[in-house]
């Protein structure tokens, strides 16, 4: 186990800079998830830690060693690829033992490590199969096993679950979490699925356009997003982000002179100021006969545990989620209000939280 320090790292492909100065301290044994939209540089950052991509500027340290110029094979990291990248001509056992054999590990030690990993991942009966004779989920396990057997300083995962179906993904997610809890190996996990990041990680790092938007514990990111981007990215369904202004008396949020949504508590310091208002769907209450802004139901999506609804308020679409059984039909007008203490405000120009 080792810490990983990323110190003002930059990466350019030719003229294009894709990582624009990222700094991140990952503690020993910590599980960090990198999330962000496609093309934000998650994989590139991970590949730099692995040594598959050269660092253009800045420093990466694993333990107390600067690894910028150290070959991947000498970094003592293990990586699980999205495509699994199993060796197609080797059996499962050979795939698992490849790294150990290269290190000329004693035969019985190789066998016992392979055996141990295989049992941990439920691969014991598949050891003599070739990768092409395995299902997607089994291949994924072999890829994990190949990393496990190594007993490395750092685990690197690049969207390891995105080729699995939804059910298997949830199951493997739990297994990865269990593995980390028992092995406590420093882990960097790349995903574009914020749910995966939130459920797995000790700390979530949101990347966009090659810079860190925010890094923090999952619930901190959820409860206090540092900016409108993180607010919209973390959480599903996404937070409602509405541009408008706080009314002159600070009591309402005005979309336009005609449409208002009253605030749960008055925001006098911001009176008259243009803002971006953020409200999570579960904090947007709807009721059939209550006080509130009249919103028209557009789409109702019952999922069982909760119901998602898209409503129209003064020409803006807002999403709400509720667990009660409220019988609303599309086209119906309902009263909408914001739950107390649930308002996020962002500067409309910079997007920063205010």
């Amino acid at each position, binding site marked *: 186990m080792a810490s990983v320090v990323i110190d003002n790292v930059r990466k350019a492909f030719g003229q294009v800079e894709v990582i624009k100065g990222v700094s991140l301290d990952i503690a020993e044994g910590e599980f960090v998830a990198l999330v962000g939209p496609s093309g934000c540089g998650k994989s590139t950052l991970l590949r730099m830690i692995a040594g598959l991509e050269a660092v253009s500027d800045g420093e990466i340290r694993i333990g107390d060693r600067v690894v910028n110029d150290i070959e991947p094979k000498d970094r003592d990291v293990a*990586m699980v690829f999205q495509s699994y990248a199993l060796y197609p001509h080797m059996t499962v056992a050979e795939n698992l033992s490849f*790294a150990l054999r290269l290190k000329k590990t004693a035969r019985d030690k190789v066998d016992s490590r392979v055996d141990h990993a295989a049992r941990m991942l439920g691969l014991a009966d598949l050891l003599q199969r070739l990768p092409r004779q395995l299902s997607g989920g089994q291949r994924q396990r072999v890829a994990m096993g190949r990393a496990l057997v190594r007993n490395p300083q750092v685990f690197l995962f690049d969207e390891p679950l995105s080729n699995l179906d939804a059910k298997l993904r949830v199951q493997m997610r739990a297994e990865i979490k269990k593995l980390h809890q028992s092995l406590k190996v420093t882990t960097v996990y790349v995903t574009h699925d914020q749910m995966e990041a939130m459920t797995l990680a000790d700390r979530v790092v949101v990347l966009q356009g090659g810079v860190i938007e925010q890094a923090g514990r999952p619930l901190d990111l959820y409860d206090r997003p540092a900016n409108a981007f993180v607010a919209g990215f973390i959480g599903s369904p996404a937070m409602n982000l509405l541009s408008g202004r706080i009314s002159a008396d600070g009591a309402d949020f005005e979309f336009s002179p005609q449409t208002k949504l009253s605030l749960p508590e008055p925001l006098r310091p911001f009176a008259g100021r243009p803002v971006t208002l953020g409200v999570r769907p579960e904090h947007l209450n709807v009721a059939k006969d209550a006080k509130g802004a009249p919103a028209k139901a557009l789409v109702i999506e019952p999922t069982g545990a909760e119901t998602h609804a898209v409503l129209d308020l003064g020409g803006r679409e807002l999403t709400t989620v509720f667990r009660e059984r409220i019988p609303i039909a599309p086209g119906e007008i309902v009263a909408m209000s914001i739950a107390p203490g649930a308002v996020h405000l962002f500067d409309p120009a910079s997007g920063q939280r205010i």
Partner: protein
Amino acid sequence: MAASLTPRKALNTALLTLGYALLGAFVLFPIYWIFTMSLKEFGDIIAYPPRFSFVPTFENYREVLFGNEADQAGGVMPDLLRFLRNSVIISSGAVLLSVILGLPAAYALARGEAKRANRARFTILSFRFAPELAIILPLYAFYTRTGLYDSYVGMILVHQLITLPLMILILMSFIRDIPIEIEEAARIDGAGPLTILLQIIVPIAKPGLASAMIIAFIFSWNNLIFGLVLAGGETRPITMGILQAMTFDQIKWGLMAAAAMVSAVPGMIASILFQRQITRGLTLGAVK
């Protein structure tokens, strides 16, 4: 009715079959012609109009392979077995050397920067554009001066002009099909470049290596001009052996046909046994 073909479909099938038949005849007729010629006596061969029914004889084969006691003085053909051995040595040697040289080259080009690789590929291809006749005279001068003339080493080296480009181009395309992540996984697992080449790339690209070797072997085997100019009595390949049937005063058609049949055997066996690999190797890039 099971075979309820519409007239249109039936017509299509018929036309297609006819097309295949014509194509087949076009390819196979010369082989048939030579084969029957090799079984004919001299009289049957020169008969006009050509005779399609005749009494087959193996005399020609006996003579090209084991010589003709009655004709020791002009005994031109008993050497065919030696020519055959020469061809085996030259073509196998050429293919082997091409594997040793071409495999790392193909790997480097396949994984290198695309623009540079394409330039290199064009250069390599251009070796195949140049007619061998254009370079054979300077090569002859060079070979006689360096002692490469009429040596196996010399023949194997000059055959690299045929086998090496084939090897590099075919392998390059096979290696490009191997996902780079597999190599990256190996790099992280602790493998260096040579280990990756030998333990990852070669085993995965084995079918490609096989087809490249077979195709290169056949092309090398069929070459005439290098043997004609650069090989002497010691290293003459089988294609030269066929020409031995031409003497001052006559062309021994029957012997020539028999020798041609013998020389074609390895190619035919290879194409039947390795049909799949050969098609894959020759149609690279055509369908993906």
